[in-house]
């Protein structure tokens, strides 16, 4: 039996307690004159019973899972030969891994006797731990079940209690998201601070050259590479700009067509089709950009005598723009639809034509919402990686020419962290600094977008 099986049995048992609770409530009801005299519906008693029995068991199980491995491995380590204990931490870890491998898959040719005995010990400790867990869970469960069973009465305010419990469940789920975000932010922040200890923040923010590769040459250890992030942000900006130039007009027009002109039948087919665009994986867009669009641009450029590199900001930007169209269009469509019909009627009533009404009344009224949608799309463009990796290249050129290859922040983060890296080198750490910058920028953008959207909502409510 392993932990997943224990968990499944436990879950099934907890589910059973629901029916037990219901049954108990119905019984209680009979003694006091029918279901009507119960404080709450029988299902609430069931839920309450399941909650009371389930939550402590789940907590115990989770704690056990968290500390079980740590404690056991500590114990095993203690018992390894003195010689092993004196090894550096990384090699000790390696040996421990071998031990647990033996425990799971049996001894191999390379296993030394002390390892085999440690593996046996590990195996038996694990078994003991599981048995103890089962015993603890079962006794706790039975104890609680008996108590709750005995104390449950027709007056128990099960409905109120379940309501309270539900609130806690929601709260826990919400806090998981928040804690994770906070954890990510802090880890990125601390690593960035370490990075800024070796590379001054001003160089990072204002330096015009980006070539982190130099830093790992054996004779140049210690951050002699250039860590100026400006070319990366310029590249990001350039590609996002191209993408928005494509996506904003196309998305907006599509939204206007869909919400103001299209017949319901057309609308109900075109809108989902457009949203399919949003469902295409970005890798697919990426190879479309790299294999179709980029060569096409290069060849067309060649025809009119322009030299276009085979990976260009234009190709990536174009395809990214297409990818973002559904964002812009579906958000704009929503806000355009939210413009009250009475405003349109007002304009029509004065003799405005349809396009005049749209241009002069509907769009201005929907503008804040549209801007909000566009800002969200921008932060999507800034964060996009795959298309750029495949179509725009890796060269950190500082250029405004869309026909040259550029690179973006996200692409650099990927390349910095792919492959063998020493974790403490400025090269690797710079990825965190880039991530922090990117995060800050998109956060600010999203915040502004939300403010704008909120302001728009207030206007019509």
């Amino acid at each position: 039996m392993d932990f997943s099986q224990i968990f499944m049995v436990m879950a099934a048992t907890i589910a059973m307690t629901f029916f037990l609770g219901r049954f108990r409530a119905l019984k209680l009801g009979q003694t006091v004159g029918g279901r009507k005299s119960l404080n709450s519906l029988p299902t609430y008693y069931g839920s309450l019973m399941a909650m009371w029995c389930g939550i402590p068991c789940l907590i115990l199980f989770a704690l056990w899972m968290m500390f079980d491995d740590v404690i056991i491995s500590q114990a095993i380590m203690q018992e390894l030969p003195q010689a092993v204990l004196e090894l550096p931490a990384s090699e000790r870890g390696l040996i421990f891994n071998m031990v647990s491998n033996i425990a799971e898959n049996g001894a191999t040719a390379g296993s030394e006797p002390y390892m085999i005995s440690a593996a046996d010990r590990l195996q038996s400790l694990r078994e003991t731990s599981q048995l103890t867990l089962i015993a603890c869970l079962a006794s706790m469960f039975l104890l609680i079940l008996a108590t709750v069973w005995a104390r449950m009465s027709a007056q128990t305010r099960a409905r109120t209690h379940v309501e309270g419990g539900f609130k806690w469940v929601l709260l826990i789920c919400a806090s998981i998201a928040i804690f994770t975000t906070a954890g990510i932010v802090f880890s990125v922040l601390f690593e960035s601070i370490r990075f800024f200890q070796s590379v001054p923040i001003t160089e990072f923010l204002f330096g015009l050259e980006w070539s982190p590769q130099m830093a790992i040459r054996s004779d140049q250890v210690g951050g002699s590479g250039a860590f100026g992030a400006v070319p990366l942000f310029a590249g990001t900006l350039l590609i996002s700009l191209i993408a928005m130039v494509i996506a904003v007009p196309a998305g907006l027009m599509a939204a206007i067509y869909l919400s103001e002109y299209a017949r319901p039948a057309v609308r109900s087919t075109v809108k989902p089709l457009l949203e399919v665009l949003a469902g295409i994986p970005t890798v697919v867009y990426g190879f479309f950009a790299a294999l179709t669009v980029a060569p096409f641009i290069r060849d067309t450029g060649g025809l009119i005598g322009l030299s276009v590199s085979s990976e260009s900001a234009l190709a990536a930007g174009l395809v990214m723009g297409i990818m973002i169209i559904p964002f812009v269009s579906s958000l704009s469509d929503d806000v355009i639809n939210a413009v009250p019909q009475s405003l349109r009627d007002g304009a029509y009533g004065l003799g405005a034509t349809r396009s005049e009404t749209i241009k002069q009344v509907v769009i201005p009224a929907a503008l804040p919402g549209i801007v909000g949608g566009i800002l969200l799309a921008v932060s999507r463009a800034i964060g996009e990686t795959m298309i750029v990796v495949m179509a725009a290249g890796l060269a950190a050129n500082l250029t405004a020419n869309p026909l040259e290859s550029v690179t973006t922040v996200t692409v650099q983060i990927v390349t910095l962290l792919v492959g063998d890296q020493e974790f403490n080198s400025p090269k690797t750490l710079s990825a965190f600094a880039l991530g922090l910058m990117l995060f800050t920028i998109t956060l600010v953008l999203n915040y502004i977008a939300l403010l704008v959207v909120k302001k728009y909502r207030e206007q019509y409510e």
Partner: protein
Amino acid sequence: MQAVNTPIQKNEKLNANTNGTDQKKTSTDEMNNSAAKVGKTVGKPFATNPKMTMRNVDVFYGDKQAIHDVSLDIGKNEVVAMIGPSGCGKSTFLRCLNRMNDTIEICQVKGEIKLEEMDVYHPKQDVVPLRARVGIVFQKPNPFPKSIYDNVAYGPRIHGLVERKTDLDEIVEKSLRRASLWEEVKDRLHAPGTGLSGGQQQRLCIARTIAVSPEVILMDEPCSALDPIATAKIEELITELSEKFTIAIVTHSMQQAARVSHRTAYFHMGKLVEVNDTKRVFTNPEHELTEAYITGRFG
């Protein structure tokens, strides 16, 4: 029951039709039996000097008929009030007069509606000049999210009514004065129109409508969102406007109808039951349904 009154021009067809629909089964409604009592229109639906003429108008929402064979004139510089229980088709009928119903896809209008000699529903008739001649004010004030000035200037601008900025200024001021809003807003013409109070917004919408100098103004419960003081102002305004314009107003307030209108039309379940001089309608209605409504027996 049969109507007894008033020789009417062109009403042979009218009679035949009304009697026809009369026999038809009407929808299951609390007023089901009262519907049977609606005969042909009684009173004076026609005017000697008509600005708008409606003949045998039927309106359908999809398969559902909302207006049954209504014939009515609105005389020049006349104020006609339309009253009747909720859902009887007053708004629907009013919105036919400048084809606002075109914005509702399932809505179909049959019959003849004329603005002087212009055939409103002629297939070749462009709605833009029509709506410039027949303006409408809605129940809920709906100023555009623009400045007060731009709200009023909107109509003249899109119709190219002015050559110079000073002309536009003049139109804006005149319209705001007519709508008795000028004194309240003259210092903040460039503040957003949505920042005004409800009553002010409604007067702004009226100013916006009259800035185009329409010949007919349609009003659909223009005071239903307003307090008594703002209502009084607008009623005063209607009386003033009737010197220049022709006005059709839908209202739920019988006092309001009595105060502002020359003739009153009583609608009942999509049919025009009675049209008479306002005084007559409220003192001595000809039709028993009208009497029931104004004495508060239903509605």
